[in-house]
């Protein structure tokens, strides 16, 4: 683990990505406590303010402090995206491992079906699922998790198949180890690593997808300060104050860049060739 961290920090992507992701997670967890103002407090006399000493990022159309709203919304945007990715990964990992384990015709049938579901764009699939479940942040999380499942199943399966063929697994079988030992001690640690890499890149995509669903009015609902929703609401007022759009847009991009960098850094760090 320490070795992995050292390798991760050696590459610029890994170091910057890790720093950004840690910063975002701290802000997401401590956000409400750090907020200088009440994110819901209206001040009709201080609307559309540009950044100032009192309101560091300015105020919105209702005079609410944008910085406080961003900090409060970090929880919705980042933590729910993480949750959606984790759920999708878990479901995908179970399907993928089971398919690889069963093999033969079952594996073929499962994977063809997984490929078929992947022919529907993730945004369209989550759009359809949210329209069945009803709009709302929780349903958007579930929709993203379902939309991510086929992709994660495909990756887990290919990794599990490759690991199963490795010499160290054959050696363990030859040593006469039990099935439980082989799966838990030999296969699982080697399956997890590529999945974690894929997951961290997927989180970036989940943040973007979740914000997009909220932007379309299907995810988080007002008066929540989810970042996609903030951009959507600010669109009507962008002539009056462009700051209202720029800050949440920058926040989404920053989080996505962080997870993308971390994912690439992890991939390089785990790749024994480099």
């Amino acid at each position, binding site marked *: 683990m320490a070795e992995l961290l050292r390798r991760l920090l050696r590459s610029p992507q890994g170091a910057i990505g890790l720093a950004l992701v840690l910063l975002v997670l701290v802000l997401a967890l401590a956000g409400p406590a750090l907020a200088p103002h009440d994110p819901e407090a209206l001040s009709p006399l201080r609307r559309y303010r540009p950044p100032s000493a009192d309101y560091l990022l300015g105020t919105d159309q209702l005079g609410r402090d944008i910085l406080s709203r961003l900090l409060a919304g970090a929880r919705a945007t980042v933590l729910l995206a993480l949750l959606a990715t984790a759920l999708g990964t878990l479901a995908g990992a179970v399907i993928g491992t089971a398919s690889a384990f069963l093999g033969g015709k079952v594996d073929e049938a499962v994977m063809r079906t997984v490929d078929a579901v992947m022919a529907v764009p993730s945004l369209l699939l989550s759009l*359809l699922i949210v329209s069945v479940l009803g709009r709302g942040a929780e349903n958007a999380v579930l929709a993203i998790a379902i939309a991510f499942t086929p992709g994660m199943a495909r990756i887990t399966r290919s990794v599990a198949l490759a690991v199963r063929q490795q010499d160290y697994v054959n050696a363990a079988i030859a040593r006469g180890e039990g099935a439980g030992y082989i799966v838990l001690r030999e296969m699982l640690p080697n399956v997890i690593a590529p999945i974690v890499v894929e997951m961290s890149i997927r989180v970036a995509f989940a943040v973007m997808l979740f914000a997009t669903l909220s932007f379309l009015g299907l995810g988080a609902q007002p008066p929540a300060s989810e970042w996609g929703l903030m951009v959507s609401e600010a669109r009507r007022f962008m002539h009056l104050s462009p700051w209202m759009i720029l800050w949440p847009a920058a926040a989404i991009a920053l989080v996505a860049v962080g997870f993308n960098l971390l994912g690439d850094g992890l991939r390089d760090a785990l790749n024994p060739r480099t």
Partner: protein
Amino acid sequence: MSGRYLLRRTGLILYTLLVVSVLVFGITQVLPADAATMLLGENATPEQLAAIRERLGLNDPIWTQYLRWLGGVVTGDFGTSMRTGLPVLPQIAEALSRSLLLAALSIGLMLVLALPLGILAAVRRGRPVDLLVSLASYVGISLPEFVTATLAILVFADWLGWLPPTGYVPLTEDPARSLLHLILPVATISLILVAHVSRMVRSELVDALHTDYVRAARLKGLPERVVLRRHALRNALLPTITIVALDVGYVLGGIIVVEEIFAIPGIGRTLIVAVQNRDLPMIQAGALVMAATYCIANFLADLAYAALDRRIQYG
């Protein structure tokens, strides 16, 4: 490329579309919408509702309804839209033609930008220009389409006033204005693709430049330009075909958002309107057409790959 391969591939596409049809039909059946109420409005009497349910076959078992719908789809009858009362197929076909124009221009612009950027970054690996391209591509893949589109409208339409903010003009009506309206949507969709594909081109070319055959070409004294063109690029660019085809799925998702923001009456906006109005036949047809587009793009990519690379033998 054997006949057996083509047959197998066609079979897989049909299976994919079958799975998608079950998925989409299933999802739309769970939708909390009653087709009869949708058609007649809230004020319909119970007798009228019962009569139209009987006529539409809504009382039949679900699999009968599915097979009837699938039978219609196979013969080119996608039913009638619940919102407009018009046949679905002509509306979908018209919307699709607009979206395909948008997608084709976006992919074209992407290729024009992404290939040179990726090649430049790979050739100048580790130099400032490589870092700049990498940095830009990280930002590019991290901006969702709705953010790019909104910022593009803010800068190029509101502040600079160079381009129209939203709207759609048919190509046949006024080609110049039509293209002017398409610039921002096309640029929005391309951005994320350029970021993704240029990174892939860079990493493929970096790998190719470290192979033995490139070393051999250099050692026999060929100029670097010839090594790059004749030896490295030929192999490095082939996987790009597959990557672009896989990205078609992403383009189709992006089109939904971009058409909604720029008010382009294509397949994406049609789908959003259909979802908002719970227009079941329209949702089913739109989703099926999108999945079919993705399958066909990937099939064509595989054929192109095999045609360009004689080492590949699909059996």
